[in-house]
């Protein structure tokens, strides 16, 4: 039970001479909601990119253990699609939907790595393919309902309101059937009401699907109320970790956020 599903060990990432991540350590336990916070430019998104295979870490290890049974697999250096197939799905800070595909199609894309209709199946449209297609449509629709977007099923993604696009990204990520969902600033650009609803949705997803969730977020109220544990990143370094209460009381964290005062 206490085996983490994600275990990141001493990951570094350099861009030219800039060290965006410096020996970052982090772990996520089964069915946990973990938040990653830090000032702008701290390297949070880079951290996501490194563990999902979009960037290859300069050094360090990323280990996953989907079943939390102590059988960790090393995944750094693997391609993003392989990582997703292994069960880590993400959303993007600057929304990356497929703009000229419908909401439903966007979610259907998420099921791609869990389905297997081939060229042959596509052309002959045999029974297995038809059934698979039906199941995909059904599941995608249900996911859209879950995130409250069923009224937009056949709307092009680019025509959906901004806040809802973030929800659509979550549905699309869920369609890949992950054990760990990574959300990059899911509440960015949302009003307090929407943020609240989003918080409820994230908790519901955790309970309903029994998966772990890790999120990057700047909205402290949301982070404090919903996370089990929080990690704080500053200049690429994990400077603190603990429960929301511990983080709120941690002087290093306060310094990182209000650093300018002390430096002066």
């Amino acid at each position: 039970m206490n085996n983490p599903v994600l275990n990141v060990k001493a990951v570094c990432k350099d861009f030219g001479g800039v060290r965006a991540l410096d020996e970052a350590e982090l772990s996520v336990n089964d069915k946990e909601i973990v938040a990653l916070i830090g000032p702008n430019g701290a390297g949070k998104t880079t951290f996501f990119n490194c563990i999902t295979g979009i960037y290859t870490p300069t050094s360090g290890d990323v280990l996953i253990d989907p079943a939390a049974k102590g059988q960790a697999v090393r995944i750094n250096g693997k391609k993003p699609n392989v990582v997703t197939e292994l069960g880590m799905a993400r959303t993007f800070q600057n929304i990356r939907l497929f703009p000229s595909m419908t909401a439903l199609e966007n979610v259907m894309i998420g099921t791609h790595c869990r389905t297997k209709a081939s060229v042959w199946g596509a052309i002959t449209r045999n029974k297995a393919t038809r059934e698979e297609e039906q199941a995909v449509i059904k599941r995608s629709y249900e996911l859209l309902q879950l995130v409250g977007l069923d009224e937009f099923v056949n709307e092009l993604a680019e025509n959906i309101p901004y806040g809802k696009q973030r929800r659509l990204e979550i549905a699309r990520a869920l369609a890949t059937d992950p054990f760990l969902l990574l959300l990059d600033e899911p509440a960015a650009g949302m009003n307090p009401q929407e943020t609240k609803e989003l918080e409820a949705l994230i908790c519901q997803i955790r309970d309903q699907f029994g998966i772990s969730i890790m999120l990057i977020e700047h909205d402290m109220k949301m982070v404090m109320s919903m996370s089990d544990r929080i990690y704080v990143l500053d200049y690429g370094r994990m400077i603190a970790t603990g429960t929301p209460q511990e983080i709120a009381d941690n002087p290093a964290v306060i310094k990182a956020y209000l650093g300018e005062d002390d430096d002066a």
Partner: protein
Amino acid sequence: MEYFLELLLGGLTRGSIYALIALGYTMVYGIIELINFAHGEIYMIGAFTGLIVAGLLTMLGFPGASILAIALICAVIWSAAYGYTIEKVAYKPLRGAPRLSPLISAIGMSIFLQNYVMLSQTSDFLPFPELIPEFGFLKEYNSVMSSSELVIVAATILSCIGLTLFIKFTKLGKAMRATAQNRKMAMLVGINVNMVISATFIIGSSLAAVGGVLIACHVGQINYYIGFIAGIKAFTAAVLGGIGSIPGAMIGALVLGLTEAFATGYVSSDYEDVFAFSLLVLILIFRPAGIMGKEKTQKV
């Protein structure tokens, strides 16, 4: 040994011409990330303009050297005008369109220009008048180096130096570098990006026109199709050196010219173009950033 020298100089000459064309590709790519497919056609139009002007002047009885100078100037003026116009017509309306759109537009433009010249002029090879006089001091070395080769290499070196100084020290040159690095930022600090793009096309086209006239003098004949092959080869040179990099284009062009010269000289002349294309394919597969280019990671 003499054969080797001859090949070496032949390679240098080729490389010089490729460099003059490759600079245009690389500059345009550096600024708007577009492979200006029609650039080879600009070179061809430069050669044709040079031929027309030179033909007229010869008939009017002008002396040789002045003909070359006037023909070069006219070729530069008109090629630059074509380059400028092409950008305005075929690329500018497509800023912000999906990446494939301007590329297809460029291919269309290239097809159009080739046929435009073919229909207006001729589809046959046209003999190009001999404009470069035989230099007396080169007589003894005639077997290894002709005067036109010397002129080409010298003109290329001068153009490259001029361009480098221009980019480095003039205001427009600095604006170009800034735009190449970050177009949005350049716009924010008040650089007239449209003008910079136009200037890039004009400079690139002018260099190609110089190349077109000189190679036409050297080879002695032109047709509407010369831009296509030369264009692809110059593009190869640009990629070889690292597209977007000006010194890279020069180095890439030299490497390509020499490779071609030695490969055709020592291996087989039937497969002349195959060497260039194979080199292109190999570089793109194994080192798409080229000799001088830097690998870029896309920011997510």
